């Protein structure tokens, strides 16, 4: 019997689909990261470029190798590996040796993503684990910060705050524009805000996560600020410094590793915020965004489990 080519397609409804798909979404995230990328390149120059390129290339190569090794379909159009690589490079210091950056990126893709089954199935944010891995492995190199534009070794604003070394704290406007020491992609608040707003506009992220995250940090630091007598400056300083904005807009909103319910996202954001403040003020590290989000990643399955929505027509409304 010959193959029949003239058959109609019978399938299940719905028969139309939004133009949304995974590759498009990844491309939007890359677009949203562009302002921060440009700022990073402008402020930190060639070394930053090296770190970024090595992260992205290493992520891409690891992804391809993993897919090959596991006999999975290789989809070139899908850029999630590039997103991971780029996000990781954004939270690394510009002067990091590029082999370390590449190693961290490979670790993120292989251990955190593909051992768990690949796209959509990882429990932890790969970029953040990559950063935590590098920080624990190469603490000296990972805490070597340089000044924007001239590359002189210095401390980050949060480092100055934590160590109380007597150095003057940078002005808020500097934090806003990004002319302070820090990771490649996180210094410029304005660039990140532009990217974040783009993602919000495109509907790829839910406003609940960044708002509850930043709101919690603001509230808690405002209370501490009032006690310490720092005024409004203090919470604003915390909001703008370190990787907080980057974390709130790009890491805590990662689809795969955060809760799926609306209430869950609010809890997730609040949890991240509280942990950031706890680590920054009481912990051993000056910066706690990465760890706070990772810790909430651990709790995410439980949050999902206990924040199930009330079904339509199923009794009293609570969300």
């Amino acid at each position, binding site marked *: 019997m010959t193959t029949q080519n003239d058959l109609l397609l019978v399938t299940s409804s719905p028969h139309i689909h939004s133009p949304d798909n995974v590759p498009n979404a990844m491309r939007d995230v890359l677009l949203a990261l562009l302002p921060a990328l440009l700022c990073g390149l402008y402020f930190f120059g060639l070394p930053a470029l090296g770190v970024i390129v090595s992260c992205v290339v290493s992520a891409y190569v690891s992804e391809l190798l993993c897919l090959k090794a596991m006999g999975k379909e290789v989809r070139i159009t899908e850029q999630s590996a590039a997103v991971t690589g780029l996000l990781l490079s954004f939270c690394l210091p510009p002067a990091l040796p590029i082999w370390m950056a590449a190693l961290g990126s490979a670790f993120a893709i292989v251990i955190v993503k593909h051992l768990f089954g690949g796209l959509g199935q990882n429990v932890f944010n790969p970029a953040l684990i990559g950063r935590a891995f590098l920080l624990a492995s190469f*603490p*000296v190199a990972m*805490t070597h910060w340089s000044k924007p534009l001239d590359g002189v070794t210095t401390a980050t604003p949060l480092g100055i705050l934590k*160590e109380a*070394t007597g150095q003057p704290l940078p002005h808020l406007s500097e934090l806003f524009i990004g002319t302070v020491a820090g990771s490649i992609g996180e210094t410029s608040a304005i660039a990140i805000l532009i990217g974040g707003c783009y993602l919000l506009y495109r509907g790829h992220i839910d406003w609940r996560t960044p708002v509850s995250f930043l709101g919690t940090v603001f509230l808690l630091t405002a209370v501490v600020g009032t006690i310490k007598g720092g005024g409004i400056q203090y919470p604003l300083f915390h909001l703008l410094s370190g990787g907080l904005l980057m974390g709130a807009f790009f890491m805590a909103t990662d689809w795969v590793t955060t809760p799926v319910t609306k209430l869950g996202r609010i809890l997730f954001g609040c949890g991240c915020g509280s942990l950031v403040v706890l680590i920054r003020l009481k912990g*051993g590290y000056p910066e706690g965004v990465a760890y706070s989000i990772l810790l909430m990643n651990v709790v995410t399955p439980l949050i999902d489990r206990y924040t199930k929505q009330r079904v339509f027509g199923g009794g009293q409304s609570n969300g």
Partner: protein
Amino acid sequence: MGDIIKLGLFLMMVAAVAGLGVGYVNIKAAPLIEKQILEEKIRSFKEVYPEGDKVENETAKYLTAPDKILKEVNIAYKNGTPAGVLYLAETKGYAGPVTILAGFDQASGKITAVKVLNQTETPGLGAKAKDPAFQNRYKGKDSAVALEVSKTPPTKENQIQAITASTITSKAVTKGVNAAREHFVATFGATKQVKTGTVQ
């Protein structure tokens, strides 16, 4: 009922034999262990104050009230006269307590040596406090001025360069040394010589 007694007796016998064995080994091993501990202690005393020939624990005499940091005060004797003071101090480091031994020379009023005895700091970072390279930074510092930690190579005499990326550990060690230093200055300062007649 008989069964129960039998079970009890059996377990009792096993326990007794086990106790016998352990006890026997203990009798044989205990002196060795004690010797080990003693030798270890003497070795560290020697390292911190090499010139002494006898060390006495005189904590009870010099620390009348329990101190938050200082745990032991040992006096090193040279030819029967007190020559140095060895402090055992414990401070809070990054991951847990850091125990140090600090030696002071009474004649010069200088730190003879500092040794980190116990710590649970991060390997590769704070754990480097055990490296001689770091401990030697305290050698020969004057006891008169408070020591402070600097992240960059020291520019002043009383500065100690921190271990890279481990300021907290460095500060913990320095804090212990400073506590010992203060006690040393207050008790054995140049004006107050060690009271004679304390030698037993």
